[in-house]
């Protein structure tokens, strides 16, 4: 079997006495879209934070293409190829939509430490950013500030930033949360397109079962921080543990 793009090996973090992520060992391969499911508080977002570096693990390892990145900083991991879109919209609110994307392209091209050139003279950055905006159909709003966008468009911009980053590992944390029925498909189509580019791996935290059914190649289930199921969607969804974990969650929500 080929080397996985991303591996977590016994990855764990505890906050005081509470084990938020409990020794999760899992690997993710190129061309694969893995949905991560589990009830609220199961540790999905914490698992994401451990991979993208917002939280440092108390035990275990994170490896990207075989390289140990457990202790690397957030920016460093990003440079190495881990990109993440956030659950709560997390943009540069007072900058224009175009500038939001330009910043990502600029980071990717390592132009951030250019002190004495004019930012707007870098047309290669602007053009690349425009291409991304057209792809997510945000180009009509390019001159508005991110704060002025509708919620749905902010979610799209969130995804656009990740696409602009073009990482090896795409991490989506509930990308369609709060989007209207006609807005969500745009984002889901984008994720499907990304999946078709087979040299990347995509991690998706999602609650909507229909979304998972159409997109995911594989489901892993977290429960109380531990990995309790891992396999093809049909198989995992039918298993008792998922029925229990998921039904449990839905009962809690009611």
């Amino acid at each position, binding site marked *: 079997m080929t080397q996985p793009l991303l591996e977590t090996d016994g990855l764990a973090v505890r906050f005081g006495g509470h084990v938020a992520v409990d020794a999760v060992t899992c690997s993710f391969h190129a061309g694969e879209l893995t949905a991560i499911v589990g009830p609220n508080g199961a540790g999905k977002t914490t698992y994401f934070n451990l991979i*993208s*570096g*917002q939280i440092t693990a108390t035990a275990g390892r994170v490896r990207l293409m075989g390289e140990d990145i457990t202790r690397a*900083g*957030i*920016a*460093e991991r*990003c*440079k190495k190829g881990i990109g*993440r879109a*956030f659950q709560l919209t*997390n*943009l*540069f*609110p*007072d*900058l224009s939509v175009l*500038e939001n994307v*330009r*910043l*990502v392209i*600029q*980071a*990717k091209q390592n*132009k*951030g*430490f*250019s*002190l*004495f*050139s*004019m*930012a*707007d*003279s*870098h047309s290669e*950055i602007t053009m690349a950013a425009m291409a991304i905006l057209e792809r997510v159909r945000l180009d009509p709003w390019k001159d508005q500030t991110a704060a002025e966008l509708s919620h749905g468009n902010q979610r799209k911009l969130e995804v656009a*930033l990740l696409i602009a*980053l073009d990482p090896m590992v795409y991490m989506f944390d509930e990308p369609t949360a709060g989007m209207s029925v006609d807005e969500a498909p745009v984002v889901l189509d984008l994720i499907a397109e990304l999946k078709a580019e087979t040299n990347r791996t995509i991690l998706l935290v999602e609650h909507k079962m229909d979304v998972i059914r159409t997109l995911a190649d594989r489901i892993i289930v977290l429960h109380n921080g531990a990995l309790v199921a891992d396999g093809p969607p049909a198989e995992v969804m039918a298993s008792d543990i998922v029925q229990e974990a998921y039904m449990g969650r839905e009962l809690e929500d009611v």
Partner: protein
Amino acid sequence: MLVKLLSGDKPRSLALTLILLAILVALALAPFLFPGVRSLETAARICIFIVLVASYDLLLGYTGIVSFAHTMFFGLGAYGVALASIHMGRGYDALLTGTVLGALAAALLALVIAMFSLRVRAIFFAMITLAVASAVAVLVSQMSGLTGGEDGLNYMIPRELTPAFRLGELFGVRINGKVLNYYLVFFASLGLFLLMLRVVNSPFGRVLKAIRENDFRAESIGYNVVWYRTIATCLSAATAAVAGSLFAIWLRYVGPDTTLSFEIMLDILLMVVIGGMGTMYGAVIGATIFVLAQNYLQTLMGAASEATGGIPLLPQLLDPDRWLLWLGILFILSVYFFPTGIVGRLRAGR
């Protein structure tokens, strides 16, 4: 060409453009438009404070870092020129050496402070700068053997930059070394200001804005936030030091009160806020208004006090001794009516 000189950062308001042009013309022609020692003194001070305030805006307005050590960096540049002129003897090489070493020392000190504090939380930076700045101010006044203590230092600068050097008359104005010195200050300040305008409009400047808006996200798209903040701090410190050097060249004197005092630090803060944070042009307007008020409000009030001599209470209120009261009122009013500063207000228009 002009747009390039301004780094594409146009004033974006007709009123602002006119005000900035008026300030530029007034400062460029100050020796001819406003002859006299006092007005030239004011003009030079405005030039220097524009640079100093703009360098502070780079930190506060563009990066969102609060520092209380800006006068310390200013003082490092000033004392650099003073010490070099004393120990190397009068000469341009001393001025240059003092300026370069002062700026380097400021950048290095800023680097150390930043490394210690920015790593943790930006707010610690404010606390540490406060502590270090106080410590340096005390040190400077105590180490009188080196720094002249509270009395400060007097020193010689090249004769061409002093009033003793006479060149004759132009448009009825006597041109002497002081006028040459003024133009040195003016062009150096203009250059430094344009340079800072370029920095805030460079890719680096865009990252600073991004960090100010959302440092968490800036980090997660691959910018090492600590490094960007550190470099901005060093750059701002070095620029403040050069402004200090210009001040020392202009005054031919340095002392704790003129360069290191906490009052100047407060003045800088007020100038940034009045002018408008994160705009650069705000520094021009803030510094001009504030320095003018500092120098002429008392005169103006003296005149007003005399003019209102017959009316009860008013002469007392307008007494020149109350000038700080009025400056305070002006400040409160400007913050109340222009929360985004004068530049922010003018750009919003309407």
